[in-house]
């Protein structure tokens, strides 16, 4: 590859173009992956065309673009699932990819695509492998407990601190291989009984007009729901009470929370009603690890 000068001059440009023309004749092989069968004749073409032997060569055959995964062996379904998840946790995605089953390789034909898809799964910090259940036909389901760095954000929604998941392994090509996705995921959430504590602490900060202190008890810098409700405790002095939590089903204006965290918010968020001297509203909380954190506010229905 020629070194390109920082400042162009005409001679270098011509040389560059010369390289480009050669590139078109020779290096454009990659382009020629685009030619379909019978993709037009060359007669009259002003630009030389070369057909690659493997038209539309799959990216997987290209070095660095996901060369065929080296098969990774595991002695049992449990061992395969353990190694798959531990490799993922350690960032050794080539190992995890080598354990992926055939369906997984069809879905993710290159390591690069598999790698990119992992961002939509919660990062794993610890793996505990539990029971294995044989499902017949050389398949087994393995229950695992995974620890994650907990988070609530508008990209991933809820990342619980712990999940209990069932992963399927299959005996394929003489070795145990793992499906790309779990069969089921169950998040372990803190008990609802602890939600009012978090809301009480948050309201107390607001009663002292300490928005910064209150923000420290939130899941993030953004506060969702009507903008004015969080300001009420600072303005309405007197007795404020916090009631028992309710499911998110009761939300009057769920839209902002669904927009931010996805429809799954209904399964993990809670509403905690608060009552001031002249107003009442609900505080929406979500589980950040073992604690509840404030996500926003929700008005109380006029009915």
């Amino acid at each position, binding site marked *: *590859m*020629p*070194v*390109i*000068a*920082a*400042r*162009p001059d*005409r001679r270098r*440009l011509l040389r*560059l*173009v010369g390289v*480009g*023309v*050669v*590139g*078109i004749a020779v*290096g*454009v092989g*990659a*382009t*020629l*992956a*685009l*030619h*379909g069968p019978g993709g*037009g004749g060359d*007669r009259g*073409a*002003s*630009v*030389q*065309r070369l057909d690659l032997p493997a038209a539309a060569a799959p*990216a997987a055959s*290209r070095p*660095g*673009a*996901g060369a065929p995964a080296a098969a990774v062996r595991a002695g049992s379904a449990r061992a395969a699932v353990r190694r798959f998840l531990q490799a993922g946790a350690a960032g050794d995605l080539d190992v995890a990819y080598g354990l992926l089953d055939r369906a997984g390789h069809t879905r993710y034909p290159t390591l690069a*695509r598999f790698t*990119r*898809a992992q*961002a*939509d799964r919660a990062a794993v910090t610890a793996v505990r492998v539990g029971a294995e259940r044989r499902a017949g036909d050389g398949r087994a389901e393995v229950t695992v407990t995974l620890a994650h760095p907990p988070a609530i*954000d*508008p*990209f*991933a929604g809820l990342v619980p601190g712990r999940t209990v998941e069932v992963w399927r392994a299959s005996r394929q090509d003489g070795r145990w291989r793992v499906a790309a996705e779990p069969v089921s995921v169950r998040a372990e959430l803190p008990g609802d009984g602890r939600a009012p504590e978090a809301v009480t602490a948050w309201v107390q900060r607001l009663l002292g007009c300490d928005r910064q202190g209150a923000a420290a008890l939130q899941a993030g*810098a953004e506060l969702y729901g009507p*903008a*004015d409700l969080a300001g009420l405790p600072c303005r309405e002095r007197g007795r404020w009470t916090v009631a028992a939590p309710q499911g998110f*089903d*009761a939300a*009057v204006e*769920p*839209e*902002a929370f669904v*927009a931010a965290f*996805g*429809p799954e918010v*209904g399964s993990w968020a809670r509403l905690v009603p608060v009552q001031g001297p002249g107003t009442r509203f609900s505080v929406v909380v979500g589980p950040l690890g073992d604690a509840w954190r404030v996500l926003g506010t929700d008005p109380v229905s006029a009915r």
Partner: protein
Amino acid sequence: MSKFRKLMTVGGLAATLALVSVVGTLAPSGASSHREALQIAQDPVADNTDTYAFVSPDKPDTVTLVGNWIPLEEPAGGPNFHNFGDDVKYTLNVDNDGDAVDDIVWEFRFTTKVQNGNTFLYNTGPITSLNDPDFNIRQTYSVAKVEHGRRTVLASGLPVPPANIGPRSTPNYEQLASAAVAGLSDGSKVFAGPRDDPFFVDLGSVFDLAGLRPFNQAHLIPRPTEAGVDGVSGYNTHSIVLQVPVKELTRDKKALSGGAGDPDAVIGVYAASWRRQTRVLSPSGNNPLSLGKWVQVSRLGMPLVNEVVIPLAKKDRFNASEPADDAQFGKFVLDPEPARLIPVLYPGVKVPAAPRNDIATIFLTGIPGLNQPRNVVPSEMIRLNMGIQPSKNPSPLGLLGGDMAGFPNGRRLADDSTDVELRALAGGTPFTPDFNIAPNNKLGDGVNTNDTPFLNQFPYVGTPHQGYASDPHYVRGSATTP
């Protein structure tokens, strides 16, 4: 039944129907967005209008990425001025190993807050700061970075500046905009908000049967020669601008040791927008609910590929597809329709015959020795050699003007990508010497510069037009020659 349950039930039904429809037709699952495609033209908030990538002129150890959304914003369009979509995920994507798969993705999500719902006013007085109580309809956003299969939230609660309303409402607009520039924990710098649309093109003439006013007399339906008219002049857009250290973009996370010849010097860049699969409207007028998985609805790297090369029937599929699957669109690039139209609409002008490997090289692979990565998988991306230093005398014609720091090596705001691509389609480049003659290598729309100046520093994209002084579309292009 609670409101949330009702909405979820409706949403679940809609999602199921959508799935059945997809299985039944094997059609791409996403609606698409961009004014060049039928579906995206209906969805301006998700419409990625332009993407730019260039070595920062004042900080050459960094690269600036610009994604623009919302086409042709009328600056006076109040009382509810244009905003990013709360229900859209915007991304800037980088491929640093040429395999057409993203290696680094920056994701952006926005939240709109109305401070006071008891007024119709966007602002209840002059907006003098980003937390001014009179700034009534505000947006904030979060940024995440996806790399090596991990997503890291870099920042949240970052402010978006208001619309540039007028001398009473936003008297010190650039001060407000400057305050919205933020640093990120990975050493990057970010800005998101309204800007002047930096694209310049004679939309009115180009879409009138590919008319080029300076060449009006040569057209099949001739007209008197005229100066070009910038159809984007006076309009705004919404920009997300990100400035990233070069060493954060390379495959090995190191600064380039071999300059422009460094094997890791070339990156591919595109922008995209995503929506959830199902949108549920509320009978009570509340905000719609967005449910289901994220699907890509718009994608844009190289300008004008989806606009004028991909045919109507495939445009929304293109928007929903991944660069790694661009082989499906290869035939349109190798035999581009606009190139076939040139001899028809401009009788006597000859262009190279298909297959146009020269066009595929410019649009899909990058030019060998300049901006083609090793082992490149052809795909529609802006390809930037980060080792080429910014030009001290930039030419808007980029490489064709002898300026290797310009389009199609990356894309700078001032690059006249329309003229470069017109000439490339006509074969008026050194890649096709037989056709590198007049008029092929002189073609242009007569609009050679933007209507407002670009900034000398981040975020570079010009100040948005003010609503009060708005007179969009009637500002003439600056040049009378192509």
